[in-house]
């Protein structure tokens, strides 16, 4: 069917100019059948522009695209799809109230008979065959809303395969998946590779790239930096290629850290009515929490910050405090950086200025009137402190990059001058450069005496940043790792232990 040694796709000198900007400048990209080719680069490096050109959304201004050694013009996404190029977006485009099979074959003439009737049995059988071809077992008659995220991704992939996809672009495929389903996704990708599909794997996550990719291409500022076999490069090399300079160590030096008294004591704190946790946090400490989705880490954070109702007192600086709502928590110097900045962290239609002071408006008001001057001064201070890149504090947050948006959320909580900062997924969806900056900030903050609870599903981040890591599993704290004791395998094992038992 296909020859492994001949590229299925050659993109040559691809250039894309938007009015005033050159998004891509002479990029070459080759793709072979049966390979997983990772595409990396910071936000704005040109990854998505290149993939949009390949999937027919944008047209390049110079260069050419060869498919099986023939030049093609990809005018629109339909043409690309018919030529066997499909894209799986980060967010799925499925109809939750239709069955898996219906989603796969939506708007497809093949399953409609001459009289205009849908051939249900054929549709369901073909949908089943498609999902099985990638090693997935899904009830294709079930409505998509009742299927898990992994199954939804499989449906998206099956939909692409139903168009006979030879090239599959996967945009951050693990972003939507809970940690324990990432492995299943890898299995699907491997199966696709064995079936001869060429996969472009767009991701920020280093450990995934090294697990799944055969080759990796790095883009920076609209140009190609390198293409390497995965075995011939290293994480450090990739990072410096992406950033364009040596980042140095992503994580700070943790050897010189000292902690004194504990600032927060949590005793028999309800996660659910059955599960209680106890732990303590010391001044200046970065306490990591690891757990899979549903393990209780998120609930713990929301409960301590008073967002969820329930019993439970915490001891802050030796005093027993009942927290009923976020206001109570904030009064005690607790701040909470939520995991989803789009939904929970920011009012994206508003300016940086308005976002940053949202929690402290009362403090900076003279009577009723907001002190504009004080607000500006605070904004200037934190824009500088966190080096938020923006033309002005009146910039609408939506126009900032992911990293800068995340810094605005962080700044917003720092303006409350917290003693205890709970951070959940502080670097989700930001590029490596911004990540390094955020890590540097977190470290500086902790050195200046801020106590931090760091909840993350990104294990390298947890291991790199935390002084201690607590692992949660099904509403309990199951283990504690001191600095230097934890590695990814141990963490994952502790976090998924009893869940495995349940499956067996």
């Amino acid at each position, binding site marked *: 069917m296909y020859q492994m040694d001949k590229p299925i796709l050659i993109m040559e000198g691809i250039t894309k100019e938007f009015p005033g900007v050159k998004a891509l400048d002479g990029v070459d990209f080759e793709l072979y059948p049966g390979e997983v080719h990772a595409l990396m680069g910071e936000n704005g490096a040109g990854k998505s522009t290149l993939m949009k050109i390949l999937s027919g959304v944008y047209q390049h201004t110079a260069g050419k695209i060869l498919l099986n050694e023939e030049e093609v013009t990809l005018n629109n996404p339909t043409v690309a799809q018919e030529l066997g190029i499909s894209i799986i*977006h980060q*967010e799925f485009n499925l109809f939750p109230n239709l069955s898996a099979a219906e989603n796969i074959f939506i708007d497809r003439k093949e399953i409609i008979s001459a009289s205009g009737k849908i051939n249900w049995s054929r549709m369901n059988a073909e949908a089943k065959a498609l999902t099985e071809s990638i090693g997935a077992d899904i009830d294709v008659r079930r409505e998509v809303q009742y299927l898990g995220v992994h199954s939804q991704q499989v449906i998206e992939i099956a939909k692409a395969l139903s168009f006979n996809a030879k090239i599959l672009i996967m945009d951050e495929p693990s972003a939507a998946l809970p940690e324990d389903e990432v492995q299943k996704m890898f299995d699907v990708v491997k199966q696709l590779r064995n079936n001869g599909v060429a996969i472009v794997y767009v991701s920020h996550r280093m450990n995934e790239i090294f697990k799944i990719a055969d080759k990796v291409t790095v883009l920076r500022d609209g140009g190609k930096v390198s293409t390497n076999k995965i075995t011939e490069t290293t994480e450090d090399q990739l990072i410096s290629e992406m950033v364009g300079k040596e980042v140095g160590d992503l994580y700070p030096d943790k050897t010189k850290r000292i902690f004194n008294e504990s600032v927060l004591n949590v005793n028999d704190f309800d996660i659910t009515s059955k599960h209680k946790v106890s732990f303590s946090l010391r001044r200046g400490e970065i306490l990591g929490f690891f757990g899979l989705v549903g393990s209780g880490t998120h609930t713990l954070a929301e409960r301590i910050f008073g967002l969820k109702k329930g019993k439970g007192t915490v001891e802050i600086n030796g005093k027993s405090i009942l927290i009923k709502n976020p206001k109570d928590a904030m009064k005690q110097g607790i701040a909470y950086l*939520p995991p989803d900045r789009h939904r*929970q962290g*920011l*009012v994206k239609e508003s300016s940086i200025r308005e976002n940053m002071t949202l929690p402290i408006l009362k403090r900076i008001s003279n009577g*009723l*009137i907001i002190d504009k001057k004080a607000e500006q001064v605070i904004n200037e201070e934190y824009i500088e402190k966190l080096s938020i890149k923006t033309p002005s504090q009146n910039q609408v947050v*939506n126009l900032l990059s992911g990293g800068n948006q995340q810094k605005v959320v962080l700044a*917003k909580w720092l303006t409350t001058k917290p003693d205890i900062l709970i951070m959940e997924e502080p670097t989700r969806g930001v590029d490596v450069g911004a990540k390094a900056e955020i890590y540097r900030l977190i470290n500086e903050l902790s050195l200046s005496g801020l106590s931090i609870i760091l909840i993350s599903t990104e294990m390298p981040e947890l291991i790199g940043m935390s002084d201690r890591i607590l692992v949660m599993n099904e509403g309990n704290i199951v283990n504690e790792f001191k600095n230097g004791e934890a590695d990814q395998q141990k963490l994952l094992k502790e976090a998924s232990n009893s869940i495995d038992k349940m499956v067996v």
Partner: protein
Amino acid sequence: MNLVKEEVNTRLKRLPSIKINTISILVILLAGLLIFFSTQSPYFLTTLNITNVLVQVTTIGLIAIPMTYVIISGAMDLSVGSILGLSAVTLGFLYESGTNIWVSVVLALVVGALAGALNGLLIARYKMQAIVVTIGTLVMLRGLVYIITKGKPISGYPDSFYFLGQGKVLGIPFSVIVMMALFSIAYILIKKTRIGRYTYALGNNEEAVRYSGINVVKVRFLTFVMSGLFAGIAAIFYVSRYASAQASAGDGIELDVITAVLIGGTHIFGGRGSLVGTFLGVLIIGTLRNGLNLMGVSVLFQTVILGVLILVAVSRQNK
């Protein structure tokens, strides 16, 4: 996903200019109406008529003030007409049964605020849909109004009470002065205080406001209490002006109010809007009604024209 983001971005980049445009378009529209009607009727631009228009719009204008807040915060209040009716007949009923007129006025305001509080409780605290709740109270309170009055208008108030709706200060109707004063206060509140910030933020992303440690239930509750209270204020002026509290007082007024707010550029889904726009929207509706009356256009046709105006206002919001 990025595509969507870029679309949003370009839309947002255009946002400031849209805002300026809305206000300037409204000013031009109003000026155009004034010029057009003045050519149609020599009476139109007289002081008497202008005063007349201003007095006529006080009812809509007063209620449109909190309605702007309610809609910007991402909600809706359809019950304002019925609350107006309830406050009006409460006033009449209490006075008729021997209560002091000013005590009756205060209690009528309290009843308005309480009706708003009921809406607020169900919507903010119990998370029920604003449209559904206020349709419910719209029907329920109007029923209550007919029970209280048994369908008969209540009239015959002391002269001092008529000052509110009919008196003048320095030649300007008192009700107009009150409306302008309340518009100014509301303008300052939404522009310069945290109440305004919360209102806009609530309409854009309620979840993020909640995660910022702000009591969203309280903020939303207060917007509905204000809505009820202002419907009560409008009721007092209404009874004073017409010297009678009828069961049909304020019937259907919610549509005029919402029309004014939408014409004023406030976004139906919240997050965007302005009180200056609402004020101009109120004036445009008043001018249009008055001018068409002077031209002898039937009330039925006026309704058609207002309907078209709503469609034009809302079609601009889809961009």
